[in-house]
């Protein structure tokens, strides 16, 4: 595998941006500045980064309740994301969606989705639009979902539809091994989720989701297939979330510390740093410059969000319909 210097730079910058966004967002959540629950994805950065590295704004992704990483990898603005989490009017969704519903249709981001598995058919629908218009080569759909979602019927329905209609879809299963507190070994009937692709007649590949280069390589082939009109692929990306299910969840109540330590040792960012250093692909000064710039970006995102106005009360009533001749504004 050969990567351009720019791509290498982008992979590191994106993973580090996700990591620091999650840490910063959590800190703000604990300070009481977020207005609701947040689901951090730190630990899983290699997955959205390695996949979205191949996408443009014309490609579509569907995301999950743990969606900040997908948003960032798809190019969303961290200021507008932080403001959304703080419920501000300048947020990505005017403060009406929150952490679990960040979307940016101008960037090909169909939205984080808080119903487990529910965004998977949306990505299939986006791929259907591409195929309908004969634009598979420039617009594919990527459905991000977790191991928990593999127990949802609609996920299987979506795979069947994409397979029979040969749609340009990548089913990206982020297997972080826990659905809330329930381990995949208990809730999923196989330890090889990728093998389920066989039952839909599509390729299924298990990938080390802690290694951004492995993700990049697997995604490259899946997306090539999709763009070439060869249909969907299921990628199972084995990964780990460092924090609990949501900000206030203590995962030590249901995970063993040796398991956590094992994954911390395989951290995707440290792995990247070791590898590029060994191969002299990037200097420590370059990496540090990226980190410094991200630190500054995070500070700016927090300042921007904290200094942004709250949405006016009228926003309660707007955006329900495009047009509605008889709006109900509440019976009081």
């Amino acid at each position, binding site marked *: 595998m050969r990567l351009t210097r720019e791509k290498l730079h982008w992979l590191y910058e994106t993973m580090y941006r996700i990591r620091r966004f999650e840490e910063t967002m959590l800190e703000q959540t604990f300070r009481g500045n977020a207005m609701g629950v947040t689901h951090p994805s730190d630990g899983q950065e290699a997955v959205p980064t390695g996949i979205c590295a191949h996408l443009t704004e014309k490609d*579509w992704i*569907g995301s999950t309740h743990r969606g900040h990483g997908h948003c960032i990898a798809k190019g969303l603005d961290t200021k507008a994301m932080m403001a959304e989490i703080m419920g501000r009017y300048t*947020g*990505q*969704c*005017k*403060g*009406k*969606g929150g952490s679990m*519903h960040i*979307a*940016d*249709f*101008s960037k090909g981001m*169909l*939205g984080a*989705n808080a*119903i487990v598995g*529910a*965004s*998977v*058919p*949306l*990505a*299939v*629908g*986006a*791929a*259907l*639009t*591409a195929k*309908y218009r004969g634009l598979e080569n420039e617009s594919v*759909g990527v459905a991000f979902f977790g191991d928990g979602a593999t127990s949802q*019927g*609609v996920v299987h*329905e*979506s795979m*069947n*539809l994409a397979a*029979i209609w040969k749609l340009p879809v990548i089913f990206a299963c982020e297997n972080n091994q826990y659905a809330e507190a329930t381990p995949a070994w208990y809730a999923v009937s196989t330890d090889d989720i990728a093998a389920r692709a066989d039952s839909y007649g599509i390729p299924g590949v298990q990938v080390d989701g802690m290694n951004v280069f492995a993700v990049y390589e697997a995604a490259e082939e899946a997306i090539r297939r999709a763009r070439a009109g060869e249909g969907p692929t299921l990628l199972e990306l084995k990964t780990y979330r460092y924090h609990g299910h949501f900000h206030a969840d203590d995962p030590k109540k249901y995970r063993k510390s040796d398991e956590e330590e094992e994954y911390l040792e395989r951290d995707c960012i440290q792995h990247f740093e070791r590898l590029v250093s060994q191969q002299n692909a990037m200097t420590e000064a370059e990496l540090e410059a990226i980190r410094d710039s991200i630190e500054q970006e995070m500070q700016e995102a927090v300042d921007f969000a904290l200094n942004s106005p709250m949405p006016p009360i009228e926003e309660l009533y*707007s*955006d*329900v*319909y*495009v*047009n*509605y*001749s*008889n*709006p109900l504004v509440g*019976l009081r």
Partner: protein
Amino acid sequence: MTTAEATEPTSVLTDSGVFVPGPGYDVPGTVERYRDSFNRTLRDELNRDADVFIMGEDISGGFDRDTLEPLDAWGGPFAATKGLVQDFGPDRIRDAPISEAGFVGAAVGAALTGLRPVVDLMYFDFVTVAYDQLLSNAAKSRYMFGGQTKVPLTLFARSGGGTGHAAQHSESFYSMLAHIPGLKVVVPSDPYTVRGLLAAAIRDDDPVFLVNDKKLINEVGFAPDESYELPLGKGRYLKHGDDVTLIGMSYTSVVCKQAADALAEEGIDAEVVDMLCLSPFDEEIIVESVKKTNRVVIVDEDTPRASMASEFAAIIADKAFDYLDAPVKRVTGPHTPVPYNKGLETAFMPQPDDVVNTVKTMLGV
């Protein structure tokens, strides 16, 4: 013909707003079955806009094993889409597996990315199989994403009892859809209204669910040849009267009209309001009529609890209470599933006699 002209079928409605079927139209039209009007309108919209496509189970129905060509063996449940696949091809008349959550979700995704899907959900009961996609994705995307997107999706399905389809194929739970902010619900009652409301639904930028009562599908009536839209959210008078208001929706508008005709023979002058849309719905026409007649009977085939009938009764209590000379009455299905046996099924559904008797009791005659 432009859309602006099409949206004003003034020659079909009389000056008083009463729709009177029969001679006297000055627009060219056809007397045809409800299903023919429906099919013809789908064809109009497929011709008008290349982004419109239809998806559902058996909407063409069957493929030739050798040529892989669609057979149009079914042409959709109740032949709603018959003949369309020959002219528009299997990409635009897209036969789907029995996978309602999957293909409704895919339709939402297609709508979010620029197409205008029309989904045939076959029986209205199957709404529940796809309910999460309707509620959580179709109806909420615009709001929870701060207005940055729209979902121009149309769905339709067949409701109601009367055909021996029993408990799981006879639902009329309109209120389960009307309850959802972000979704629109329309209930045409004849060929003229299904033609105008289906066109309006497909052209509307919000998700719209159009419910076809099975008892209407073979009913015959007049429908203009040219394409036109009826406004979403407006009801109409089927008959003016002074003594009592009968409010119907979908097939119960026909029931109300039959009841009004029977009451007329006994010298009782009932007014009939056909709601046509349940979300948004026409509060003004309800309040206007009740203020005039001072009495109201709401007729709904749905079960009564948390129903549209209850909602209309609440609006009347709120906005026309001082004008009421009698308690608001609801004639609905009982709080039971729809039974199979013909006698039981008939007893489940509101009949004209039930409406007549309710009115006579109310008037003390």
